């Protein structure tokens, strides 16, 4: 039977753009699946238009929940995108070149997470046109200023880190100017990896610091080490523990969808091991921090732990965050038998990523949900569909960029070798 797309003219054939030695699905199948991210982006577009045009009253945020699902998603994707800086750091600076096969993917995922977060933040602020005031009238004592500076700059660094992958496309790379530029960028990448590490370290921390400095919010406040509250270090640790897991998870999902092997299992196991050790260190620190907060800090303010967890944000959150999504994945990832199994490794990494997301949720929503004045009421919050629309941007534009990048860019250097017939 003849199908209509059999007659598509030859220019629809994009196989000369595919990475060397790989095969990809037919253009019409690809175009069909592009519909998915484009639909999500359309949903985002409608929501973003409504929010920008009519104002933040389109959300369910209010004067009690000054931050909502957007900040939760922002913090979560930035933590999950930490795989980019940490993998680059290990690969280029520490010299763990075993990670080379996955570093491009990590940078790509980081790029998606950061650009998504910045776009969302632009919609989140009440006066987006004044967004640059944070740079011009910078208050150097605010953690948020530091976050703004570093996220913006790090997004630029990520663009530069991603550039060689784009230039190495089979067709683009044939252009002598691009090919030479890409070669030169590769040789100097260590500088960008170092700059990225510096910037990332500080803004991952400052995102935690944002909550740790709220000394009138007993749920969030933590003691200081130097000028940084404990949450600064805890957020850095949890981000670098979850980042490599998330990167590997995305690669595994891509493998399942495309039916191809993209990196060797050894690389994934190494990423799992790195994640596991970092998570273990984080869990020890986090547990000590939680105990100190619960039994020494809170009573000094006339509060008890029980008051901190009220329905619907009950004490089950602690057990979930520290137990099921904290210690459990740490132990799993450190068990060699678990790492050897594809499914179990994926599960452990998933738990790890849920854990960091839950942590960001608790710090954002629960810090604000709890009234500090004894006679103040307790409110809960649910996002509107417009908020979900804007929050789904990361998913939509992430899918779009990842699909295009997977089809045309040499993101996975091991792919040709692993899929030889």
């Amino acid at each position, binding site marked *: 039977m003849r199908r209509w797309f059999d007659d598509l003219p030859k220019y629809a054939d994009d196989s000369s753009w595919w990475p*060397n030695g790989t095969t990809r699905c037919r253009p019409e199948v690809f175009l069909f699946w592009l519909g998915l991210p484009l639909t999500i982006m359309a949903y985002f577009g409608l929501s973003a238009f409504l929010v920008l045009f009519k104002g933040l009253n389109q959300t369910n945020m209010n004067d009690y929940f000054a931050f909502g699902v957007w900040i939760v998603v922002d913090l979560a994707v930035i933590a999950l995108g930490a795989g980019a800086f940490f993998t680059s750091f290990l690969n280029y600076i520490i010299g763990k070149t075993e990670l080379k096969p996955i570093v491009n993917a990590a940078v790509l995922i980081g790029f998606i997470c950061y650009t998504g977060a910045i776009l969302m933040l632009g919609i989140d602020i009440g006066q987006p046109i004044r967004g640059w005031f944070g*740079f*011009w*009238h*910078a208050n*150097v*004592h605010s953690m948020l*200023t*530091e976050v703004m*500076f*570093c996220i913006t*700059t790090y997004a*630029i*660094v990520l663009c*530069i880190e991603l550039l060689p992958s784009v230039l*190495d496309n*089979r067709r683009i*790379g*044939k*252009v*002598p*100017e*691009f*090919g*030479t*530029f*890409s*070669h*030169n*960028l590769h040789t*100097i990448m260590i*500088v*960008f990896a170092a*700059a990225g590490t*510096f*910037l990332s370290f500080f803004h991952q921390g400052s995102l935690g610091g944002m909550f740790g400095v709220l000394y009138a919010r007993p749920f969030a406040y933590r003691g200081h080490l130097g000028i940084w509250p404990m949450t600064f270090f805890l957020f850095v640790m949890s981000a670098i523990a979850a980042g490599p897991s998330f990167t590997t998870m995305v690669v595994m999902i891509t493998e399942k969808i495309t039916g191809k092997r993209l990196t060797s299992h050894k690389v994934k196991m190494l990423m799992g091991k790195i994640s596991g050790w970092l998570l273990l260190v984080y869990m020890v620190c986090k547990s000590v921090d939680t105990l100190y907060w619960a039994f020494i800090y809170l009573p000094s303010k006339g509060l008890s732990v029980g008051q901190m967890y009220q329905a619907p944000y009950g004490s089950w959150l602690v057990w979930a965050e520290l137990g099921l999504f904290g210690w459990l994945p740490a132990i799993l990832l450190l068990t060699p038998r678990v790492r050897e199994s594809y499914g179990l490794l994926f599960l452990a990494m998933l738990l790890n990523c849920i854990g960091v997301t839950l942590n960001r949720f608790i710090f954002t929503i629960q810090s604000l949900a709890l009234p500090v004045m004894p006679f103040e009421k307790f409110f809960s919050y649910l996002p509107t569909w417009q908020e979900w629309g804007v929050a789904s941007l990361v998913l939509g534009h992430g899918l779009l960029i990842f699909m295009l990048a997977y089809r045309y860019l040499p993101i996975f250097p091991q792919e040709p070798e692993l899929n030889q017939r």
Partner: protein
Amino acid sequence: MLPFVFEWHWDIGHIVFFGLFYGVVSVVFGVLGLTILKTILDLWAGKIHSADH
């Protein structure tokens, strides 16, 4: 940003923060500029790298 903007406080934080931050920004853009310059010089000298080679 600038001392003549009202509500400005002088303090060491500005020097540390802006110093570090703009230092990193200059390194990033400086190295990017140098790479572009080197590429132009390489092309001039005929040291071409491309997917064909």
